[in-house]
């Protein structure tokens, strides 16, 4: 019993971070059709900014908020200066975001060195649930992940801006004919994706040691999750993150983290064969489609 609970909490920790990172990547990919290879680096900047803010004396939540805003601004600059020329050239966008990622990693390496010794403590201590002690902070991360996803989902469904973004991603020309400023919408989508990367970076900052390539470790999984999520950004990403977090936790608990990675690779290969539409395809069945 305790093993089940411990695996469950292990999974929920990973789930929260997977969810936020993949969602940011998925929004940029889904709306702009651009594969953002610098997404991990945006996350890394978020983590560094949070640690700097906390070390400067700010409380952690404020630090995370600041990091999110900072990375969102960075996303805005990136979009206005570079990305908006590349919306119609996805392959060139890959090269360019690759270049940006190179610059960011190397700049962080030059400024902060290869490892950051000043780690910030993860707040909240531990909770005891059914005899298992669970770090409170990591549960909080999961909760924040779910709230952020649900909030964004509601925003995409209920607000005018959200409707505009969906319209532009569906049919840019038609959306433009209805008077939607498609360029501005793309920019907003990119900034939103960047902000999510910053948020994810801020949230993981207290739990891992800082390295210039820390974001890449997460983005690896995020890419896979975007693949198996399919075309429904929110529901697909949610289900895929949950499934992969659970699979990783179960296999890692039973056989070690080595086989955890292997199982994700295997699951991806099998999934794309039997379920080409990804997790979104499950939701196509009429009764569930309402979700």
């Amino acid at each position: 019993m305790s093993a089940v609970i411990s695996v469950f909490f292990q999974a929920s920790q990973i789930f929260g971070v997977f969810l936020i990172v993949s969602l940011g990547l998925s929004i940029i990919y889904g709306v702009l059709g651009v594969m953002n290879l610098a997404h991990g680096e945006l996350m890394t900047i978020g983590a560094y900014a949070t640690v700097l803010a906390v070390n400067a004396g700010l409380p952690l939540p404020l630090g995370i908020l600041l990091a999110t805003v900072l990375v969102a601004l960075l996303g805005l600059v990136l979009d206005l200066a570079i990305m908006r020329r590349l919306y119609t050239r996805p392959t060139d966008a890959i090269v360019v975001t690759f270049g940006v990622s190179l610059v960011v990693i190397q700049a962080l390496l030059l400024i902060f060195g290869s490892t950051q010794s000043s780690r910030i403590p993860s707040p909240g201590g531990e909770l005891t649930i059914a005899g298992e002690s669970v770090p409170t902070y990591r549960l909080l991360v999961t909760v924040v992940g779910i709230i952020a996803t649900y909030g964004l989902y509601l925003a995409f469904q209920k607000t005018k801006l959200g409707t505009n973004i969906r319209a532009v991603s569906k049919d840019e020309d038609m959306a433009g004919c209805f008077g939607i400023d498609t360029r501005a919408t793309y920019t907003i989508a990119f900034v939103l994706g960047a902000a999510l990367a910053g948020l994810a970076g801020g949230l993981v900052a207290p739990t891992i040691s800082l390295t210039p390539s820390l974001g890449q470790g997460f983005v690896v999984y995020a890419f896979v999750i975007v693949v198996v999520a399919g075309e429904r950004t929110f529901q697909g990403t949610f289900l895929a993150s949950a499934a992969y977090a659970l699979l990783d936790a179960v296999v890692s608990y039973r056989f070690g983290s080595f086989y955890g990675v292997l199982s994700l690779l295997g699951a991806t290969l099998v999934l794309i064969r039997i379920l080409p539409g990804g997790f979104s395809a499950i939701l196509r069945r009429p009764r569930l489609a309402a979700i």
Partner: protein
Amino acid sequence: MTLSIGRLRPSALGIQSRSGHPSPGGSRIALLLCTAGFLIFPFAAPEYTVLVSVSFLTFAILTVSQVHVWGFGGIFSFAQAAFYALGAYAYAVIAGNLDADIGPIVALVTAPLVVLALAAFLGFFIFYGRMGALLLGIVTLSFSLMLGTFLNQTGGENYHIGKVLLGGYNGINNVAPLFVGGVPVGTTTLYFLTAAVLLAGVAAVSLLRFWRIGIGIRAVAEHPVRAELFGYNVRAYRLGIFVTGAAFAAAGGEFYALWGSYTSPTLLTLQSITLPVVIAAIAGRDRAISAMLAALVYSLVSQNLASGGASYALIVLGVGLVVVMLVTPGGVGGWVTKQVGRLLSGSGKDAPAPPSKGSGQVDRVTAGSTAGGGA
């Protein structure tokens, strides 16, 4: 809600053909010039330079395999670096498990075949699952990254294949050197072997398009649905391209392992995985000869930057990539072709000599002159 992913047209991904294709005559002339250059180089340069250049050549093999799969075959794949690394590992493992006199030769021949079989396994799921173009890119990217993560975790005594330890993030050291007839292969021989494999690959990729089967491959790459309606077995064609590209990349990986006598998961960082795609995109993705030259120039530049001011090298490189792509959409190869074509049509029959900056522009010049500028 749904966000459409299938919104992009194939042309937006560079799957459809671009104007200004290389011509058979131009490609042959450029190939001959390159061959001559490769033949002269080891006699003109000191041995150390020749040794260093072998690693450049292996990277050029990787980049050309990318052109084969992506630019020519229309498969937007990030798996080439993975097959390159797998080739290096396969060679090290096979050669390490056999006798020192015969093992390396056997490994040299069988390692690409092993990788070909692995690629066929992966490709079966991808192509027979009829995966979309952009999705394919992400799946192959994840595959490569996960392979890297996987190899990083193979440290310790437990992870070995036969006698060879996989070595985790240290990789496999002391890869068995190559012997031919009991004599160890020296720097110059290794150089010529690698250059021969590279040139054979470049010749195959750049001339295949003009052959009968190449026309089928182009049809499948440019419009899969239309090709299928004409009776082409699209899935088999794409699988064929994928596995041959994998085997060629694996051959490059072997020579990399031979060159440094080691192999490690650093071949599979995000940078290493995307680099061949990036170089192919810069050169103009369907130009094998341009891609080879771009890979060599890139290696040379990054080498010099690294020895100059190590820490700023990647920043300069990153900024360079961004600027190049913003200034020359569709790659430098196409841009140069266009400029030279404009120059040629402006100056009439007075065909100028190739630009003096080196043979880097040769194939673009010839392609431009025969394709009428390739607007």
